């Protein structure tokens, strides 16, 4: 009899809190968008599935052994944990969790040893998160793979388009301002680190967003990643109205001269030039841009094609599976169902919109300064969201002028946007650390 009671007590249905139920519906919604509407499925399928797993009541898949021990609520273990964390005695679960969060590394380890001795293990998703994201490795490996898939040819043929990629990063910083503004007005309670991590959504670059928020605001990582990937999928809806509003029919019809051929040598040397500039001026962007340049050098150098193939296929796929599940672990109800999430979702779409506008306006500015006209529609591609944003530019160009193929021209600002947001990420990490350190 006791056994049946045990099983029922341990079964999910009994423990399912409303928040977890709601998060499961949210995650099913993400899966629907990914599978049916093709919203960045490579990431949103694992994220959504991981989110469901993280919200299974009683399974504790997304928490470390110590938290599992706390939830299990054995009186003896709780008092040992309280002692290990430097509390006099166990008073409340929330008090214990707060102590855990603020405990120094040595106390953390003592608590982990107590949990291990009591037979608790880390949850599967918690382990994935520790290895893949907390260590920083998964976003970097994906960035390496993206580098190995990136052709800098269009950018090298027309380096001016780097400015479009720079301008579109204004979306990032405007969002930082928005976030601190919300805090100042008392609507939200974002720290400067939170604000920086939210801003990076405007970079429209998944791995960069995950990397930055894992460093600056791990608690918000789930919401930030979901916002980043969802809005990237929504680029074909978000950008066109802004692009039409800011350009005249005349401007949208501008045909661009064909890109010059770019030699293999230029393509080999470019990632090294970029790397050296990063080394000289932006050491905090070195992990992201370093791995990106490494992937690109493997692609272009022509002598390590088997490594480049693996970086673009087996390695990036394996990493994506675990990265997605790990991000999903941050969709646990107690972290995600927070007013902050709504703020993040609202700020994220603003970031995309402002980035798009800034890119288009910069293109118009460049046209005002130079004879060699560029079609301002390619400015919006500067937000990155490779290659979706470039396709949007192409589509609007064709609408205005059926002979106007902008795709290759838009690839320049598009990859420039990847560099731009990695640079912005480096700057923000440095500055936030100096401010909070």
């Amino acid at each position, binding site marked *: 009899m006791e056994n049946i009671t045990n099983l029922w007590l341990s079964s999910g249905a009994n423990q399912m809190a409303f928040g977890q139920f709601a998060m499961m519906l949210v995650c099913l919604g993400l899966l629907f968008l990914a599978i049916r509407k093709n919203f960045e499925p490579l990431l949103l399928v694992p994220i959504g599935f991981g989110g469901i797993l993280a919200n299974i009541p009683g399974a504790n898949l997304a928490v470390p052994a110590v938290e599992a021990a706390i939830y299990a609520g054995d009186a003896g273990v709780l008092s040992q944990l309280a002692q290990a964390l430097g509390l006099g005695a166990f008073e409340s679960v929330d008090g214990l969790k707060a102590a855990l969060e603020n405990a120094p590394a040595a106390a953390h380890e003592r608590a982990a040893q107590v949990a291990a001795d009591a037979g608790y293990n880390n949850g599967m998703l918690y382990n994935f998160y520790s290895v893949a994201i907390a260590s920083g490795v998964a976003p970097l490996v994906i960035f390496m793979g993206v580098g190995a898939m990136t052709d800098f040819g269009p950018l*090298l043929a027309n380096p001016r388009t780097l400015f479009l990629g*720079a301008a579109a990063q204004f979306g990032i*910083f405007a969002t930082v*301002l928005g976030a601190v503004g919300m*805090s100042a007005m008392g609507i939200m309670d974002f*720290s*400067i680190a939170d604000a920086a991590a939210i801003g990076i959504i405007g970079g429209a670059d998944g791995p960069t967003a995950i990397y930055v928020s894992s460093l600056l605001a791990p608690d918000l990582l789930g919401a930030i990643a979901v916002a980043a990937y969802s809005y990237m999928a929504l680029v074909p809806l978000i950008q066109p109205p802004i692009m039409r509003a800011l350009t005249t029919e005349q401007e949208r019809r501008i045909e661009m001269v064909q890109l010059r051929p770019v030699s293999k040598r230029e393509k080999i040397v470019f990632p090294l030039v970029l790397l050296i500039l990063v080394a000289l001026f932006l050491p905090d962007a070195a992990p992201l841009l370093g791995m990106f340049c490494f992937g690109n050098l493997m692609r272009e150098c022509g002598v390590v094609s088997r490594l480049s193939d693996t970086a673009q296929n087996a390695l990036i796929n394996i990493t994506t599976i675990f990265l997605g599940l790990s991000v999903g672990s941050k969709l646990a109800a107690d972290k995600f169902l927070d007013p902050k999430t709504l703020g993040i979702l609202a700020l994220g779409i603003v970031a995309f919109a402002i980035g798009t506008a800034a890119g288009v306006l910069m293109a118009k500015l460049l046209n005002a300064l130079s004879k060699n006209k560029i079609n301002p529609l390619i400015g919006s591609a500067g937000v990155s969201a490779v290659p979706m944003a470039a396709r949007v530019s192409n589509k609007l160009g064709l609408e205005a002028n059926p002979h106007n193929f902008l795709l290759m021209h838009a690839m320049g600002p598009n990859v420039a946007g990847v560099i731009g947001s990695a*640079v912005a990420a480096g700057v923000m990490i440095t500055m936030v650390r100096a401010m909070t350190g």
Partner: protein
Amino acid sequence: MQESLIQQGLDITLFGMGIVFTFLLVLVICTTIMSRVITRFFPEAEPIIAAAPVSSATAGGAGDARLKKIIKAAIEQHRNKRR
């Protein structure tokens, strides 16, 4: 504190955008120099056109096409002989 938070946000925005632009400006300059140096002093034997790699799918199609062409030629040749 709130004052200071906004101040921090403004700092990040101003310096951040400034550095992004400066860095990419330097990158534009260096890239342009690099391209000119390579084009002038280290040109490649034959200019390489940035052609899209032929995917295996296309190659398969090409195979089919070649097959059809061979058969067509065989039949053509045969007809010609008959005449």
